[in-house]
Each structure stands twice: as C-alpha cells, then as structure tokens.
C-alpha cells in the first residue's frame, strides 16, 4: 500500500530536521523568563527559557522537550526567531503563528521573515496536530504573561 502525499506536507524535511536536531537545546541557568508547556492529549512537553539584555531584548534562548515531531520541530523553529526581539515583538510572532494555524494566511512579509516556519502550514490539513504545533508558542506566551506579573 502506498502512503498518500499529504503526509509529505505534514512531515516536510525541514520539520524532521528540526525534530532530529533541535536548535537551542539546553536550559539557561538563570533565565529571566521560564515557561513549561504540556499537552496531555499526547504527552508532548516543552520547557522554554529566555534571557533579556538591558534593553529588554531577548539575548539568550534555551529549550528542552520531548514529544512528537511536530511539537518539537515547531518549538525548535520558534527558538530560531527570538534572538533580539522585544517581548512585544515575540508576542506578535505568537499571534501571527496562532492565526495561521487557525486558518489565516501569512502575509508575504511574514512568510519572508519566518522562513522555514512556513513549512508548518501543512499541519493545517491534520487538525488534531495543530495543538502539537502550537505547544512551544503557547508556552512562550505563558512565559511572557508570567514574567509581566512578576514585574508588576
């Protein structure tokens, strides 16, 4: 029996590459922000740590996790796009990605900026995997929200 081609949309090479060799592995020792995300549906887990410079821009990123290829690859791709961003910019990124997973299209500028993240659009054909793809991103949002609370 032949495997259908939709699978290749889901499991694009770049996704499997991030899954096998996740970027920014290892947690920061003294992070400014820390978030933990868990998807009880399939047991996917992501821990994200961020450091900020004096201007409040992200200058260090560390992540660890375990779970399916989509959850881990998506979180790994996210970590590639955080360096130098303010928390507001990082939140914009999360908002954009969530929107795309919920059916919106990337603008050409967003697609240009996010590069390989666009490969995750294939996940939309497999609705139950959207939660997997979002895990790292919602973990980032939770970490930012928690950080803001501590800053009053």
């Amino acid at each position, binding site marked *: *029996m032949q495997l*259908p081609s939709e699978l290749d949309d889901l499991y694009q090479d770049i996704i*499997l590459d991030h899954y*096998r060799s996740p970027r920014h592995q290892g947690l920061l020792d003294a992070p400014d922000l820390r978030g933990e995300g868990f998807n009880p549906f*399939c*047991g*996917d887990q992501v821990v994200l740590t961020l450091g900020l410079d004096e201007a409040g821009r992200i200058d260090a990123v560390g992540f660890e996790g375990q*779970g*399916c*290829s989509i959850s881990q690859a998506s979180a790994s791709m996210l970590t590639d796009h955080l360096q130098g961003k303010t928390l507001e910019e990082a939140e914009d990124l999360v908002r954009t990605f969530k929107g795309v997973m919920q059916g919106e299209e990337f603008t050409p500028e967003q697609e240009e900026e996010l590069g390989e993240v666009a490969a995750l659009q294939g996940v939309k054909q497999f609705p139950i995997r959207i939660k997997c793809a979002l895990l790292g991103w919602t973990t980032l949002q939770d970490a930012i929200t928690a950080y803001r609370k501590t800053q009053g």
Partner: protein
Amino acid sequence: MYDVAEIRKDFPILERQVHGVPLVYLDNAATSQKPRAVIQALSDYYERYNANVHRGAHTLAIEATDAYEEARAKVARFINAPGPENIVFVRNTTEAINLVAYTWGVANVKAGDRIVVTEMEHHSNLVPWQHVARVNGAELKLIAMAKDYTLDTSDLDELLTPATRLVAITQMSNVLGTITPVADITAAAHRVGALVLIDAAQSVPHMPVDVQALDCDFMAFSGHKMLGPTGIGVLYIRSEVSEQMDPFLRGGEMVLEVTYEDASWNEVPLKFEAGTPNIGDAIALGAAIDYLTALGMDNVREHEVALTRYAMERFAELEEVTTFGPSDLSVRGGVVSFYMSEIHPHDIGQVLDQLGVAIRAGHHCAMPLVRSRLMVPATARASFYLYNTEAEVDVLIDGLNQVLRYFGDAASKRA
C-alpha cells in the same frame, strides 16, 4: 469458536473506508464498535416505547421500565451477580469508581487508614483514591509491577495491614494487557478486613467474569467497551455493603418519602440512581450482552488469545520496536503497547491512520505507569476485539514497516 468473517457482517462500521482504504480498527481498549443489534435496540426504544421509567402507569412507561429492568437483570446474569439489585447503572467506569469514593470511601476511610491500589491503574482508579486519601488523611499504597509486567504480590502481606480499608485494583491493564490475580488479592484483602473494588473496564468485555467467584465488594465497567453505547456503565455492589452506603446524588427517583424537612431513600439499586437514568443506552447495553452471550465469552477470550499470540509473533519481526506486556498469554489480554525510540507514538499513529489503521498513541490515561515504570514518554497501542483478524494484524505490521521506511528515508535524505 465462531466464524469471524460472519461476525464482521454484524458491524456496519467495519465496512467503512478511511482515506480510501478499509478501516482496520485496533483501538478497542478505548472503545469498541457496535453491532447492528445494539444500534437497532437503541432506535427501537426511541421509535416505539420511549418513556420515563419507574413512574407513570401508561403502556409506554411500563414497557420502558420492563426493558430497563430486564437490561439490569442481563448485566447481573452476565457477571453472575446474586441479583439485579446488585447492579447500579452509571455513566461509565469512572463514575462508578467515583460513586464508591464519594460515598463509601469518604464515610469509611479514616485518618491513618490505608488504601491500596496498583501501579497499573488507569487514572480513573487512582485519582479518586488520591482524593479520598488526601481529604480523610489516609495513606495510598501501591502494589508494584514486576519485571515481567505482572503484579509483584510478594510483599502483599506487608502491604495489607489491618489499617487497610480498601484495595482497588484493575483486572486487566489497559496499557499492558496484564490480567491480574484479583481473586487471590481479594482473598488476602478480606483476611485483613479490607473491601475490594475491581476495575473491570478491560476485563468484562473480553473474558468470562464471575463476581461471586472473585468475591469482590465492588466492580466497575463501561458499556461502550463491550459493544454497548457510550454513556452507560455499571457498578456492582455486594448487598451487605450497598445497604450501608449513603446515596451519591440526591433528587428524584432515589427517594422513598420526602417531606419539606427530610427524605428517606429508595431501595438499592434505585437509591444510587437519582434523576431520569440513561434508559435507552441501558437497554442497548442489554442487547450488547445478548450478543456477547450468544458468542460465548470463552470463545471471545480464545479468539483474542490466538490473535494476540499471532500479533506478538509478528511484532517480534520488527527489530526497531519494543513491546510491553506479559509474554505469558494466560495472563494477558488483547493489548499490545509498543515503542520505537526514534519515532514518537503520535507520528506512528498519524502514518498508520493514512493506511486506515486506527491505534492509540499517548499515555492511555495511565501517566505514572507509562512515564515512571515503562520509562517512555508515551506508547502506541494496538488493542483487539472479537471481530479483529490476523489479516488486520498483517496490515498493522506492514504499516509499521512503512512507518520505519518513511521516517528512515526522511532522515537519510538529508544525510
């Protein structure tokens, strides 16, 4: 034995195609498919005699009440309960266990007492007891899993102290398929004066079960895993125990006499069935039991043992795959949990789905077992029922070979 090809014709859903290929349904530990007779019983009730039960003297009400109570009697005979009064209809296994926890458990487990469960429990037979232990100041102890995936009962005598009020154990693990020695454990528990609850969600659908032979005090199981509809489950309670128990939910139907100040309770089992019960699904569960009884539970068990033996032989061909569960089929049901270190179970399930094969991927509502004992983040699980075939096992194994090739190729493309 029965003719599986003939049996399959009774299940309309098995003719279904998924992604253009025939469905191979191997997620029976999650829920079973339904034969036409069960679907028919449900629509018959709604088309011909839908009425509320235990009230009203009109024809429909009498027919509905008779059918509902006949379903209760069928359940009682099926597990050899002394009588229908031992059978309480609930939503599912989880609700059955919570009923015991919130009534008998909260009232009888005292500070310093002990509740014993096993490391193999489904969350539904663990989390309610964590709650009772926490609220009442009792301790929760575990019967450990042995290396061969059976229960390690070697230190049972130390675990079962006179302070032990309850032993709550699964009869068949939904992750490992392990069939546990519930009769022996029950006897040991009774020697120290503890009561015993058996989570039979995976056992009653798949093998002959006799509550009087097991001598347990409570037994819980779900209709939907045994060819019946969702939303109907069973709690068996030994009579001496149920008479002493307070009601769970209070309201209509469960009362005998009500004044503005007070109320007295209806007799068992209606004492535990407040409000309009799930009449249609109970009646359809009765039809499921008729179907299982006609096949013979010994035959169902024999079929599944043969199929599991075949599946284990085929799984052994896959070097990259680790399976979990007892190798001795006399203590194993039709469940094969497996794991590949390089490919997450969720991804396995995704590829298999494209080939029409339905399996479960995840922690199977047994997180501590999967993570802390099997030491993996999740497993994939194939689980069989009376209508599955060796040909379907072959489709699964072919599918797993494709999974290995697919993710292997994807990895080597970059190398």
